[in-house]
């Protein structure tokens, strides 16, 4: 055990060193921002669950069933998330970390390396889910007026569920790594996971839950609620945990202790088994992961068509960067799942507009349709912000340690950033315009709203992409093992805040003038001179802010890269 503790020390020491005063990454603004957001999210979760459970308590007969069904669903969801996150983390920690060759060269057993890495992976995979489960279970405790034992049982249950998921994840990964190199398994798993999520989203969306408000289908809902009382399988650890928490809420001590003991012993048995397997299989899998990487898909042999020629209109250096960027982007398997998810989101986004029951509403919809269209500008821009955060913000960091090539090349840093900007701007502007134009067509909006939405998005997208490129350069991390994670750092958060603020300000600046124009058109009146001045100033200021976001942020990014 001493060896395992020694192996864990560098990680702990790195954490402590990160908190030192002199560390640049440790400033109050960062701590305040992350802490504040965490607390807001935590309180928000608590309020939502408290209100939902209070509401359930008021529903006769079904209230308790619903609350318990929700509990079982939450535990099942947590377990699934934990298991998936553990599998991915175990693969990285056990087989793909940079420090593994060093660790395996040390005079320590592979079992000890496994245990230390497994503990690190279990912690990384679990802490956030445990942290955000607290407000949910606190709201259960308060609503059911639970005693002290409930909180103890809940904490034990959370620890055991994390240990079970981690041990299961470890065992699955140990077996998987013997069959396939670890890098390949990660790609396949991520793809499978995303496909599963996409199927789930489509199923949920295509069942059209909005029809539940239709009284004609209420009978089927009653039948559905009846089916909720069916007990879960007694063979699943999630059932034991749910039963333990339920029993603790109902003060049934014996049932509660039995289930928590069952869960605990199962967790420790799994850990023991995973260690036994690790003794035999871990080093074999690690050796396999050290083999030469091979492409998942073989390159196309057909050379008759060259897509690069489409970029021939660009200056030569820009074209070289563009070709490099496109190639490295599409060959990086970690980007693929995100692209699938993005495609699914776009389809669902447009589908939602297509099923809006505009013709069945009893009120006059022309105002509503145009209001939706106006708000849709903000919604589409926000979707674009999220996509930019994932793809554009890490784009400079993605250069990684190979950034010296850019620095040594006879290309100005400014040009390099503008190339990055345009490479993402073009597909994103097309995507944004498709979202806005098609949703407007579904909404059957007025020509004025159509033009306004198209132009506003045309100005907002470069602003968002410019912010992402510039801030991505300012907060570039060329040494990160996973540059995509840059967005979860301070810079990424700052980008999200600035981007959403910019979208909100532009929408607010446009809202008043748009309302005036729209109502004047509706009433057949003309606008006064003062109204015209106000409209021009508002639109002018919105445009100025968008231009500032593009040019000034990229300029700051350039300055920052020159100093790096």
């Amino acid at each position, binding site marked *: 055990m001493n060896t395992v503790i020694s192996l864990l020390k560098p990680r702990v020491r790195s954490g402590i060193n990160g908190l030192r005063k002199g560390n640049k990454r440790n400033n109050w603004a960062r701590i305040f921002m992350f802490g504040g957001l965490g607390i807001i999210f935590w309180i928000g979760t608590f309020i939502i669950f408290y209100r939902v459970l209070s509401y359930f308590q008021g529903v006769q007969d079904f209230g308790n069933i619903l609350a318990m069904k929700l509990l079982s669903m939450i535990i099942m969801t947590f377990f699934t998330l934990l298991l998936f996150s553990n599998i991915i983390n175990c693969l990285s920690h056990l087989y793909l970390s940079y420090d593994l060759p060093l660790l395996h060269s040390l005079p320590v057993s592979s079992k000890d390396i496994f245990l230390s890495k497994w503990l690190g992976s279990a912690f990384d995979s679990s802490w956030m889910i445990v942290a955000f489960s607290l407000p949910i279970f606190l709201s259960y405790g308060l609503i059911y007026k639970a005693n002290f034992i409930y909180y103890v049982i809940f904490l034990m249950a959370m620890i055991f569920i994390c240990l079970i998921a981690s041990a299961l994840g470890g065992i699955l990964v140990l077996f998987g790594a013997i069959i396939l190199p670890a890098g390949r398994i990660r790609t396949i798993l991520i793809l499978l996971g995303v496909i599963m999520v996409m199927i789930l989203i489509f199923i949920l969306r295509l069942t059209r839950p909005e029809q539940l408000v239709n009284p004609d289908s209420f009978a089927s809902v009653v039948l559905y609620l009846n089916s909720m009382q069916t007990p879960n399988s007694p063979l699943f650890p999630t059932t034991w945990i749910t039963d333990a928490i339920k029993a603790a809420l109902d003060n049934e001590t014996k049932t509660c202790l039995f289930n928590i003991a069952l869960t605990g012993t199962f967790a420790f048995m799994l850990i023991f088994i995973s260690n036994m397997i690790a003794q035999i299989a871990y080093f074999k899998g690690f050796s396999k992961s050290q083999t*030469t*990487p*091979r*492409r998942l898909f073989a*390159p196309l042999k057909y050379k008759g068509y060259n897509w690069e020629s489409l970029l021939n209109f660009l200056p*030569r*250096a820009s*074209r*070289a960067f563009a*070709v*490099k960027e496109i*190639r*490295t982007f599409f*060959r*990086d398997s970690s980007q693929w799942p995100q692209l699938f998810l993005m495609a699914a989101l776009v389809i669902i986004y447009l589908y939602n507009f297509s099923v809006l029951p505009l013709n069945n509403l009893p009120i006059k919809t022309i105002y509503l349709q145009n209001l939706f269209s106006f708000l849709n500008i903000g919604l589409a821009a926000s979707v674009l912000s999220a996509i930019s955060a994932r793809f554009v913000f890490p784009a400079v960091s993605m250069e*990684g*340690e*190979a950034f*010296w*090539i850019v*620095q*040594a*090349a*006879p*290309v*100005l840093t400014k040009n390099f950033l503008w190339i990055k900007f345009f490479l993402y701007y073009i597909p994103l502007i097309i995507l944004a315009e498709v979202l806005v134009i098609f949703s407007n067509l579904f909404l059957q909006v007025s020509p004025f709203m159509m033009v306004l939405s198209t132009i506003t998005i045309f100005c907002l997208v470069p602003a968002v992409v410019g912010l992402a490129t510039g801030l991505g350069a300012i907060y570039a991390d060329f040494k990160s093992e996973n540059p995509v994670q840059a967005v979860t750092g301070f810079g990424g958060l700052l980008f999200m805040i600035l981007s959403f603020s910019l979208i909100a300000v532009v929408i607010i600046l446009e809202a008043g003038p748009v309302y005036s124009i729209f109502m004047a058109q509706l009433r057949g009146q003309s606008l006064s001179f003062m109204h015209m001045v106000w409209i021009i100033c508002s639109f002018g200021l919105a445009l100025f802010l968008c231009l500032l976001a593009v040019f000034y942020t990229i300029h700051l990014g350039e300055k920052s890269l*020159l*100093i790096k």
Partner: protein
Amino acid sequence: MIELRELSKDYGTTLAVNKLNLNVARGEIYGFIGPNGAGKTTTIRLMGGIIAPTSGKIIIGGFDMAKNPVEAKKMIGFVPDRPFLYEKLTGMEFMRFSADLYDVKRDIILQKSKELLQQFALWNWADELIEAYSHGMKQRLIIASALLHDPKILIVDEPMVGLDPEAVHMVKDILKELAANQTTIFISTHTLSIAEDLCHRIGLIHRGTLLAEGSLDELKRVAKLGEARLEEVFLTIIKENTFI
């Protein structure tokens, strides 16, 4: 071809390069030696335009790196000490990428790339992703790509790290041939035998300051050593730590 004037780089906590003055003529191989942390890599990165100096000037082929970075960099072939590349490109794609950046004539790119990849024993790997290359192969690919545009100045940081003896021998021959064809070569190295074999002049840097400079014979005289090897000269000068 290379002129450094009062060049300094201060990282805030460390003065990595302190008022460095240096001239390297056309066709000369200049060896830059010094202990770990002496400021060799910082000097090389300053010369390559990768980092900006705190003060002083870098003149490359008559172009001021601060004022005309693009023109200055066009003259340079830069080889860093660690071979970080775009792992998701193939070797051939990286050669094309470099050729486009350095504006190599389109009609010779393919032929020249092929020749260089063959010369560096990488032709059979040309269509494999760089992530599948070994450390030495990546180092060879960087050297090959740095020679693609026939640079007038070659700046190399630790050229032999990761190379096998055959590749070391080949690189040495290539460097000698380039110098004979009037290419200026600036090499930083820990391998004193390489500096001894290759360099016309050697500069010895310690704690950011150039302690001594000259041919091997001149350095021996300065260190008051007779028939000594460069290693002894190096140790003597570093031990005395005096500006010569």
